[in-house]
Structure formats: structure tokens, C-alpha cells
């Protein structure tokens, strides 16, 4: 009888400890994660294709750029943080365009007039495309600007960078991909 009661107590205690351990593990996992950082489900997958008109030039089709490393930067003329990274993007374009790297700016929630004015004043040299209706932005799971996607030569999304970039960060990303493809 006593043995049976002891056995039941052991089972009950094991159950309670298991439930408490599960709750603690869930809380530890949830509380240890930064809620503002959301991993993009697109990283590692094929980049959604698009054909978008340039502000001043022919349309750009992503699939036609297969074989080149693509830096896809979502921006807007009204976005102050986009101005911070613009020089870095332009320097990267100037430095790597002969190494098979393409930088494309995707204008998000903007007017063509404002975008043209910004491009002219900031002396942007890489191609800028218009995303009327934000269909491309939605396909890339955009939450705001600036956001940048780095695509491999095979058209796979390698990284999703949120917020303004700096030249060192972008150069590091591109160099590691160039190194990987030269191996």
C-alpha cells in the first residue's frame, strides 16, 4: 500500500516537474529572443522574379540577371535612413560592377517625380526601378525601408539586411560571395 502511494507520488512529481520544465523552456526560448528581429523565410530560397520599369530606361527582369550577384535595395525618397546608406550602395556599384555584381534600387511607395528628384540630387548611378502597387515588395515580405536582399549567382536569396547598410558590411557580403564562387 505504502509502496503504491510512493509510486503514485513519484509519478505525480515527475509529471509536475515535466510540465514546469516545459513552461520554463518555452519562456526561456521566447524571452531570450529579440521580438523586433524577424527571420525572413525567403533566405535560402529562390528570389521572386519581377519585371519592373526603370525610372529612366528599359525594364529590368530579375531572371535575366542570373549568373550575377544581385544587391536588391528597397528604398524611397521620403525615407531618411535610405539617404544614410545611399553613398555606400553607390560606392559598391562603382567598385564591383565589373566583377559581375549588379545593384538595383527598388522604389517603394513613392512618386516617380520625387524619386527622380532624389536620384538627380544624390547622384545615384545604379539602376532604379519603380514598384507601382508594391507587388514586388509584398513578394519579398517587405516590412519597411530600407531593406536589402543579396542574391547569389543562381538567384537564391543569401541574406536579408534590415536597416541602413554601411560600405564595410556590403563589401563583406559581396566579397564572401565572390570568394565562394571563385573556389
Amino acid at each position, binding site marked *: 500500500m505504502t509502496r503504491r502511494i510512493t509510486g503514485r507520488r513519484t509519478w505525480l512529481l515527475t509529471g509536475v516537474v515535466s510540465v514546469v520544465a516545459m513552461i520554463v523552456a518555452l519562456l526561456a526560448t521566447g524571452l531570450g529572443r529579440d521580438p523586433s528581429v524577424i527571420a525572413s523565410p525567403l533566405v535560402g530560397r529562390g528570389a521572386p522574379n519581377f519585371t519592373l520599369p526603370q525610372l529612366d530606361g528599359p525594364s529590368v527582369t530579375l531572371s535575366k540577371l542570373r549568373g550575377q550577384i544581385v544587391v536588391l535595395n528597397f528604398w524611397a525618397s521620403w525615407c531618411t535612413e535610405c539617404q544614410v546608406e545611399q553613398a555606400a550602395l553607390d560606392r559598391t556599384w562603382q567598385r564591383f560592377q565589373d566583377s559581375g555584381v549588379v545593384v538595383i534600387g527598388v522604389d517603394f511607395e513613392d512618386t516617380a517625380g520625387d524619386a527622380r528628384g532624389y536620384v538627380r540630387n544624390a547622384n545615384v548611378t545604379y539602376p532604379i526601378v519603380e514598384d507601382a502597387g508594391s*507587388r514586388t515588395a509584398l513578394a519579398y515580405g517587405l*516590412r519597411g525601408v530600407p531593406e536589402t536582399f543579396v542574391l547569389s549567382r543562381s538567384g537564391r536569396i543569401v541574406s536579408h539586411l534590415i536597416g541602413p547598410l554601411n560600405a564595410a558590411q556590403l563589401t563583406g557580403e559581396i566579397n564572401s560571395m565572390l570568394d565562394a564562387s571563385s573556389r
Partner: protein
Amino acid sequence: MKAAGFPKLARISVPGLLVVIALVASVAALAIVAVRGHPPVTRAQQVQQIAAGLHCPICKDLSVADSPAPLAQQMRKEIARKLSAGESADQIRAGFVAAYGDSVLMSPPSQGLAGAAYYLPWLVLACGLVVAVTLLRRWLRTPASDPAEAETSKLSEAQLRAVAKEVAQLRVEEPG
């Protein structure tokens, strides 16, 4: 004898029974409507229904249907465009999940680890019921008001065996 077995039921009058049945039927009808919802009729209602199930990616706790943000407006337009192109509600939701992840859904998905949000409460409830029934049965079996029984329970197994042996011996010596 049967009536004595169900004293409370026997006391319920016919009008009372009808009220209980009406209440149960009303609650069941409400539950069915709440779970199934009204099937959307117009395209705008379809858009509204799908948008209500999607979380506005740049808002805090607002659905795409309720958010005035430009991105949410574009999402509503995109839903309408996809519906016109013949996509089903599930396909449209899947498209947004592919781009934004499960966090774009207002309710967690019922599959995978997130499905725990649906079955865990039932599991906890079932465990609670088992514990409650076990405790209740134990309390009913060992009333604390009976000091003789309480005293008996303090005896060890060896003592209990000795008492049982003594009783058996007495029965053999004095049958009847």
C-alpha cells in the same frame, strides 16, 4: 426507486426543461456561427475576410483589414487582384506566409509546433481533470472524520498482516 436515484431531474418541470433545451440550442447555434462564420458573398467581403486573418507587417496588433497603413492598403489590393486572377483564399494566405512567415497570420497555424497553441490547452484540461478526479476519489475514500480508519492507516504492512492472521485464527477457533 429510479426517481430516488435522480431526485434533481425529477424536480425539473416541463417549462423549465424547455427553457434549458432552448438555451442549449441557442448556445450551440452561436458556437456554430462563431466557428464557421458567414460565407462571404461579394468580392469586397472576400477581401475583408482574408485581410482580417492577416497581420499588418508594419503595425502593432492590427490586421490588414483594420490598418490604414499604405502597405496594408497595398496588401488589400493584392488580395483583390489575386482573387480576380482565380486564386483561392488558402493560396493567397500561403503566398503571404511564403514571403512574411507564419507571423503574418493573425491566428497561429494548426500544423507543426505552432499547432501546440490549439491542442495544448485541451491537453492541460485533460490532465487537470485526471488530477481532479484522482484527488476527489482519494478524498472520498479516506474521510478524515473517521478516527478509527485514520488510526488503521498508520499501521505498517507487517502489522496489518499480523492483525489479519489473528482475525483468521480467531475465526478458525470460534466458527460462526
